[in-house]
């Protein structure tokens, strides 16, 4: 029994539907969210990789940046090329602070009507304030609280979704568009957080339940909770803000330099101009002292956030930031920060679990192959 909540939890537009479907609900980022449905985390995880899973991610923040100066303005907050992001293209980005640390990770999509930004639920209010403070006068920052967000992920997602509009099948990974799904207007992108092919669908809150029911009516689709969302993203090697990345980790330490296009790096046409650029450029040139890596365990024992990582002689060289028993890879998998000299794939290390050492090997991620649709 938990202590009485002083602030009641927020509900997404699909809250009643989750209860109807028998979800076990838990608080997450101030919302009452489904952690699993009667199938359970393992079955939901495996179903997503085999067929298609429907996730309610309406707790995340959706914002539109409007005006001709929006792309250049956003570039003052992220080390990412937004100015040359093509129409209906989507990109992963990071809000940084003056120390080069990460304030949040986000998705940015160049839509016809503006830059469509999706931020983490736990950072939503801070991110909106951050944008409003720093982008004032350069573009309009328009939060979209009336929008719900659904994710449909898995190899059968396109088959299921195409029944509602065959046009979605033409989209490739990280592109989006305005569509009608069986008459319901949406903006969707072919992207997600599972490593599988799939879509993220922004829909007005008044039509969210109707759309969810249409998707759940497809034979391939089952509802999936946050428990499986976490194990899926972890197997895909994707970071979870607040655990794998935070204000104390730079994009270089976090092994996210692929997200920093050349044009924004030292020497590029639009180098710097975002918080922490000096720190990040220095690390891009000289390396960082520690690095986020994947770890795979050879014993069955899961290794969790906070576990120390040591060498054979017991020297502590790192710490686990996320970990689980991966239902698809069927092994313990983890993300950890380790001293840079131990970051090479194949390095043999140990994690400490309940005062015992369990062998872990540094591994490239994703731990299970990605299945993005590139066309």
């Amino acid at each position, binding site marked *: *029994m938990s202590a009485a909540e002083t602030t009641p939890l927020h509900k997404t537009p699909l809250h009643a539907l989750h209860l109807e479907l028998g979800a076990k609900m838990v608080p997450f980022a101030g919302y009452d969210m489904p*952690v*699993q449905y009667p199938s*359970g*985390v*393992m*079955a939901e*995880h495996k179903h997503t990789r085999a067929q298609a899973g429907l996730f309610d991610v309406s707790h995340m923040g959706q914002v539109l940046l409007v005006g001709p100066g929006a792309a250049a303005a956003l570039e003052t907050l992220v080390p990412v090329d937004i100015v040359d992001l093509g129409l209906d293209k989507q990109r992963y980005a990071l809000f940084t602070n003056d120390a080069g640390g990460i304030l949040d990770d986000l998705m940015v999509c160049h839509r016809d009507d503006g830059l469509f930004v999706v931020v983490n639920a736990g950072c939503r209010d801070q991110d909106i304030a951050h944008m409003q403070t720093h982008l004032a006068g350069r573009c309009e920052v328009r939060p979209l609280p009336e929008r719900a967000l659904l994710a449909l992920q898995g190899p059968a997602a396109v088959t299921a979704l195409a029944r509602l509009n065959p046009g979605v099948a033409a989209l490739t990974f990280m592109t989006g568009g305005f569509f009608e799904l069986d008459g319901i207007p949406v903006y969707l992108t072919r992207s997600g957080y599972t490593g599988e092919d799939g879509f993220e669908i922004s829909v007005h809150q008044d039509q969210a339940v109707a759309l969810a029911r249409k998707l759940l009516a497809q034979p391939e689709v089952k509802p999936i909770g946050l*428990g*499986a969302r*976490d*194990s899926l993203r972890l197997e895909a090697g994707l970071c979870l803000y607040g655990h794998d990345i935070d204000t104390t980790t730079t994009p270089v330490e976090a092994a996210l330099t692929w997200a920093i296009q050349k044009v924004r790096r030292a020497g590029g046409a639009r180098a710097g101009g975002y918080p922490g650029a000096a720190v990040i450029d220095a690390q891009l040139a000289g390396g960082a002292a520690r690095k986020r890596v994947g770890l795979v365990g050879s014993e*069955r*024992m*899961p290794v*969790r956030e906070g576990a120390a990582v040591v060498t054979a002689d017991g020297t502590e060289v790192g710490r686990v930031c996320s970990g*689980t*028993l991966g*239902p698809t890879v069927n092994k313990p998998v983890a993300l950890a920060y380790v001293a840079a000299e131990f970051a090479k794939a194949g390095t043999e290390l140990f994690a400490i679990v*309940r005062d015992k050492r369990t062998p872990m090997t540094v591994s490239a991620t994703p731990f299970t192959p990605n299945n993005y649709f590139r066309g």
Partner: protein
Amino acid sequence: MSSIKYTPDHEWVEVHGDGTVTVGITVHAQDALGDVVFVDLPEVGKTFAAKDTAGVVESVKAAADVYMPVSGEILEVNETLRADPALANSDPLKAGWFFKVKLAAPAELDALMDATAYDTLVKNG
């Protein structure tokens, strides 16, 4: 003829009447845990006091301690469960047993709950 007692930590204790008991987790416990992916069982021959942590049961999301319901020596652990942790979900009351204990203080059994008391705990919990 053995009898079953329960702890507030959602473990069952089968009392064999020969100074030994078998310990496992209840249906309620495995439901709350979700899919069990790993169990860490105590060492055979080791002695624990009541309420010591004897092992751990892990789901995809989290780990939960398994406590000694009574004091005693571990006689046997369920190797079948170690190899197939999902037994804790599919058959928690029989094939999914965790460990067997030689009682150090049989009177400790009197402090455990009977079925009625445990059912009440689950209903009100």
